[in-house]
């Protein structure tokens, strides 16, 4: 007999009432607990806290993802120049090792926090929370998070960002979106970077890249740009400006 409710059940049983669920068990019976919780539950909770903190300070956070060497830091350097006087920018840099990228950003007169992940292949929400503590949030309205160069893992970890931007450089295959669908599907915007090289690369066709992207995402916008020549930056900075929280509030 169950000593909880006095019923004659021989096994563990569940009793539902209006406001709770009770599991009644007999001596040493294994009990089954229904959880239905994401494996990233802890990370997602922290990411939500980060997002709330950013919103409180009216900061828009953009998470940049791509393979290593696709030009994320070069994109940021030029973006900082283009947005000078228009937005107050800070950057969180993620790399396995070195402060090199943060140094490049600081040389532009912008605050940069370098996260070195050691061997970890992605940034997570807790690393971002720690980096946010080191920034003066009152002085920023646009925060870039340069994720670890990797087309697999960063897609799964919410950091608290408002938008994901995935880069595809012209030195990679134009079928990358189909090969790494998770990260390209996570993107709110895809950038084809290093467009200045299209003239000398005959194996990257932007049209094919567009088709490849469409086959996995339908209607994710795609822009083409070069951090070297500045080609395509007008559209990119316009997208950025329109994506900021302040702009969306005004709208």
């Amino acid at each position, binding site marked *: 007999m169950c000593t909880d409710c006095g019923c004659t059940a021989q096994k563990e049983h569940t009793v539902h009432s209006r406001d709770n669920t009770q599991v009644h068990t007999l001596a040493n019976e294994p*009990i089954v607990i229904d*959880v*239905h*919780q994401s494996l*990233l539950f*802890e990370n997602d909770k922290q990411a939500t806290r980060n997002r709330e903190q950013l919103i409180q300070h009216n900061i828009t956070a953009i998470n940049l993802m791509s393979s290593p060497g696709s030009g994320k830091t070069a994109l940021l350097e030029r973006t900082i120049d283009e947005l000078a006087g228009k937005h107050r920018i800070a950057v969180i840099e993620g790399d396995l090792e070195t402060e090199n990228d943060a140094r490049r950003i600081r040389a532009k007169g912008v605050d940069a926090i370098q996260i070195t992940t050691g061997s970890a292949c992605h940034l997570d929400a807790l690393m971002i929370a720690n980096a946010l503590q080191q920034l003066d949030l009152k002085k920023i309205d646009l925060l870039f998070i340069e994720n670890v160069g990797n087309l697999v893992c960063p897609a799964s970890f919410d950091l608290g960002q408002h938008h994901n931007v995935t880069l595809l450089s012209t030195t990679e295959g134009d079928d990358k979106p189909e090969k790494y669908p998770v990260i390209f599907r996570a993107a709110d915007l895809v950038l084809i970077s290093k467009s200045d090289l299209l003239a000398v690369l005959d194996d990257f066709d932007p049209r094919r890249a567009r088709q490849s992207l469409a*086959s996995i995402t339908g209607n994710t916008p795609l822009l083409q740009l070069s951090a070297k020549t500045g080609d395509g930056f007008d559209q990119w900075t316009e997208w950025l400006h329109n994506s900021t929280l302040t702009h969306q509030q005004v709208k």
Partner: protein
Amino acid sequence: MHELALCRGLLQQLNQIADEHQASAIKSIHLKIGPLAGIEIELLKRSFPLVAHGTDAQDAALEITAIPATVQCQECDKKSEMEGIQFICPHCGSTATMLLSGDEMTLESVVLEQHEVKATHHVH
């Protein structure tokens, strides 16, 4: 590639659940994983014992259900199971499809063994 990190997160959740229910051991763990979660199930299975060693979960059986990816077409409204990673509607060829399932990675349930000899009572 981040299976080890996921296992650490999972273990945190398991410890919390085991504590709440005053469990002496975790007998089994049931996960559901879709093909778009970015998880290699085999790698996850191999990573888990490394992380669980020396914890309440070290002898737990890890059961993983792989669930299929399904999409609903926004043009013709038909639902279909994806073949590979193909988001195109097999009925009308449209690329405007909505993912219904396939990116899940959830801890569905846990079976716990308990300390007490007496019957116990849990509220969650």
